[in-house]
Every structure is written in structure tokens, then in C-alpha cells.
């Protein structure tokens, strides 16, 4: 579904991604783990067009999307719940959700039933229903995180990129977020997940990739990575 080959990306003169090759098969959940500053966020940004890659190929459902602007990539069905949530602070929760469906509402993607999907999001994230008329900027961090995920899902995406959906959440909410990810996986949504809680991420994922200093150093079955001694030492120790 999503296929990345020899991706190279830089901020100015500083090369951050050296040579990333990675595949997210249809209906699967792939976890991308790595220490702070390894380039996980940058990888997602390059996929969704927030950062133009220097070279390499990114295909989504067979379409080459590398170097396209974000808004065009979105139309191919890529949703990105970005690092730091980035909800639209001065708009109410409901409008944030509707904007997630913008390509559907403006004819760039199959419309489907947008209202029913808003309702579906409220079922998945009941907190959002209670706060549907509240301005997104006044939500708590955890609620904003839920909103960012729900907003991304409103695209009816082919592939969903999730950048640290558990960041800054209380332990109980972290569990809730992971159970929602598990439910999305049951619904056959294709996902690429970046997580600081590597153990939990590899627990729900089908496959995993380990990113170190802009290079993929290990990849394979999530269960295999979970039991890999090197991975255990570097990423899983104590994060459970």
C-alpha cells in the first residue's frame, strides 16, 4: 500500500534521513521506533509532503507522491496525525472533524456519509462528543490528541500516519489510545505508527522498523523484534 524506497531528506544543509526503505502492506500496522532525534517525525513529514524529500520514491497505492504538496497527497488517501497534535485551536471540535473530511466535502475524494462518520468518531472517542462545540484550543492535551486522531480518520484514509499519539498523556489515557489503535487495526486500517512506548507499539504492530540516526538498522516481524536482545536493550528496557 505505502512503499518508500531510498528516501533521503534534509533540513537545510543537515541531512536527517540517509536512506530509508520501508513498506506498509495493506491492512497492516507497522511500528517505526527509534530514539529521540532518530528521524521518525521527519520520515512521516516526508511521506505527507510537509517536507519535500531530496530523493527517493514514495508510492501510495501505486501513485508516486514524493515531492507533491501535502494537499495533493491527502487526496490520494493519506492521513497524518502530526507530532504535537496541531488541532485548529480557534475552531470547535466538530469543525476540526469536518476539516478532516475536507477532500470529501469538496469533491476531491469519494464523499460517503460525512455526518455518519462524525458520529462514528464520537462513538470511538466519547470525550469528543461531550465537547463537540468547545474550541479545540481549550481541550486538554489528551482530548486534543484524540481529536487529532479522529480528524485524521475523517478522511477515510487508505493509510494513516500516527506520530506519537500517546505523547504527554497520563498512563491511563495511554492505555486507552493503544486500545483504540488496536480497534482501528481490527477495522483493517493501514497504519504507520511512531511511538515512544516501543514495547506497546510492537505489541499491537504486525511489523516493525528500527530507525537510528536516519538509517533503518533493523526490521521485521513485530514479535521477532520484541524478542531481539539488541532491541530489548536499546528500546524496550523499562518503558513498560
Amino acid at each position, binding site marked *: 500500500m505505502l512503499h518508500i524506497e531510498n528516501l533521503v531528506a534534509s533540513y537545510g544543509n543537515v541531512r536527517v534521513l540517509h536512506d530509508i526503505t520501508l513498506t506498509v502492506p495493506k491492512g497492516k500496522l507497522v511500528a517505526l521506533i527509534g530514539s529521540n532525534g532518530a528521524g521518525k517525525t521527519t520520515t512521516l513529514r516526508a511521506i505527507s509532503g510537509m517536507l519535500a524529500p531530496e530523493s527517493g520514491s514514495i508510492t501510495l497505492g501505486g501513485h508516486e507522491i514524493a515531492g507533491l504538496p501535502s*494537499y495533493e497527497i*491527502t487526496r490520494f488517501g493519506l*492521513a497524518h496525525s502530526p507530532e504535537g497534535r496541531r*488541532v485548529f485551536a480557534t*475552531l470547535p471540535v466538530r469543525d476540526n472533524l469536518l*476539516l478532516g473530511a475536507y477532500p470529501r466535502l469538496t469533491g*476531491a475524494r469519494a464523499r460517503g456519509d460525512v455526518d455518519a462518520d462524525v458520529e462514528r468518531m464520537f462513538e470511538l472517542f466519547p470525550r469528543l462528543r461531550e465537547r463537540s462545540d468547545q474550541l479545540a484550543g481549550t481541550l486538554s492535551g489528551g482530548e486534543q490528541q484524540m481529536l487529532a486522531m479522529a480528524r485524521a480518520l475523517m478522511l477515510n484514509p487508505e493509510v494513516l500516519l500516527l506520530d506519537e499519539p500517546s505523547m504527554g498523556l497520563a498512563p491511563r489515557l495511554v492505555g486507552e489510545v493503544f486500545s483504540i489503535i488496536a480497534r482501528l487495526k481490527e477495522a483493517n486500517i493501514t497504519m504507520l505508527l511512531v511511538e515512544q512506548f516501543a514495547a506497546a507499539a510492537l505489541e499491537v504492530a504486525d511489523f516493525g522498523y528500527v530507525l537510528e540516526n536516519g538509517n533503518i538498522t533493523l526490521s521485521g516481524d513485530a514479535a521477532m523484534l520484541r524478542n531481539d536482545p539488541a532491541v530489548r536493550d536499546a528500546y524496550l528496557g523499562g518503558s513498560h
Partner: protein
Amino acid sequence: MSILMQLVVSGMAVGMIYGVIAFGYQLTFATSKTLNFGQGEALMLGALVGLTAINFLIGQSLGTFWAYLLMLPIVLAFGALQGTVVEWLGVRQAIKTKSEAGWIMATIALGIIFKNVAENVWGRDALKFPSPLPEASLSFWGIRIQPMEIAIVIGAVGMMLAVEFFNRRTILGKAVVATANDRDAAGLMGIDTAKVITFSYALSSMTAAFAGVLVAPVTLTGATMGAVLGLKAFAVAIIGGLSSGLGVVVGGLILGVTETLTGYYISTGYKDVPGLVLLLLVLSLRPSGLFGKATIKKV
């Protein structure tokens, strides 16, 4: 007392005009963090195009009132087109290259060019704009008001409410607000933010052109009418804050009223001073404006 009330009421109409132009500054600043320093020239061009259109329509033996109404869509369309041109020529490249000052020079330069073009097409003299409403003043409790002054206030408020309604109720309007909130995140929603910025320039010049034909019947029309209005409205945008719609209305009214008061109690020669003094005061005491949160960088 009634003199004072008279001055306040008289200051309100021109204050609303300042408010609408300042509102136009806000529209582009919200989405792109850039301003059209030729906003006064957009107003002037709107008024002159409106003058040509209304005279043509009157020549088709239409009454002034109907000619004025028919002229409005022409002027609004022209304003939108003019704003689009400004964004294409002056701003787009600067935004792409993240240039801090390119757009300032470019929009000032375009303003000067528009003024020169106007001088060549319409001449240098101030021209009379046909008034769609009776020019005799009405009297309320001894306070005299021209019907056109009432129309200015209604038109200005109506324009701002229309934009507000569009932003809150339509998906395209929400896309504009989303772009103003967070341009990158708006892109992730599938919003073509470059188009949104062009659109906000079109809308901004459209409001200025509309302000031009609102104010033209009570002033005179000419190539030089925009410069001072644009500058004062800029002061209002700073006074009211670049992010608050209510701020520019209040700021505009404050300035309009202070001007008529100064003109009466001190001297018409000093009429233009209070705005600039207010501007300096606000800039030194409250750089984000009386109502605003955002500050403008390096201007």
C-alpha cells in the same frame, strides 16, 4: 452637548471606513502573515472603477440608486481580481522563499504603480461621485446625519458580518480559518493553502474596493484618495490588533471620532495627527493592539 454628539456621529461613518479597510489588512495577515500595503490604492481603484461604471449605467438612463446597486457587483469583482493580481505579483514569491521583507517592498511598489495608472486613466483632479441617496441631511434629536453616512455604517458592518458568516458556516470558510490557525496542518487536511492565501488577498481588496464606493459619495474620488485612508486604516489595524474583528471596528470608531473632535476643537489642520499619535501610543504601550494577541514582526 449636542455639538459633541454631532461630532461623534459624524466621526462614526469615516471611522467605519477605516474599520473596513483595517479588516482587509487582517484578512491577509491571518492566512499569510503578510499585508497589502497598497490597500489604500485598492480602495481608490475600486472607487474610480465604480465611478466609471455608475456614470455608464446612468448614461443608460438608469436612476442613480439603481445604477449604484448594479455597479456594486462590478466593483466587487474588480476588487477581487485586483487583489489576486497583487498576491500573484507581489506576495506569492516572497511567501515561497520565506522572505521577511520582499512582500513589503512589492506591495508598496504595486500601490505606487496603481496610483500612477489611475492618474493616467482618470486624471489628477478629484471627481464627484453620484450619490445614490438624497444628499440632504436627516435630523434626529437635533443631530444631522447624511443618509449616505448611515449607508456607510450599514454597508461596512454588513460586509464584515458576511465574511464572518462565510468563515463560520461554510466548509471553504473553515478552510480559511484552518489555514490561519496552522498552515501546515491545513495542508494535511487537503487544503490548498496557497489558493487560500490568494483568496484572502482577493477578499481583502474586495472589501477595500467596496469601502471605496461606500465612501466616495461623501468625499471626492481621485487617484490620491487612497494613500491617507490606507495609512490611517493601517494605524487602526495596529490599534485594534491584527487578529480581532471587533478591535478594528472599535479602533476605527475611536480614530474617526477623535479626528472630528480634533478638527472642531483644535484645528482641521491637525485632523490627521490623532491617528498617528494613537498609533505611536499603542505601539509603545501595547504592541499587540488593544484587542489582539498577534504581533506583527519587523514592520
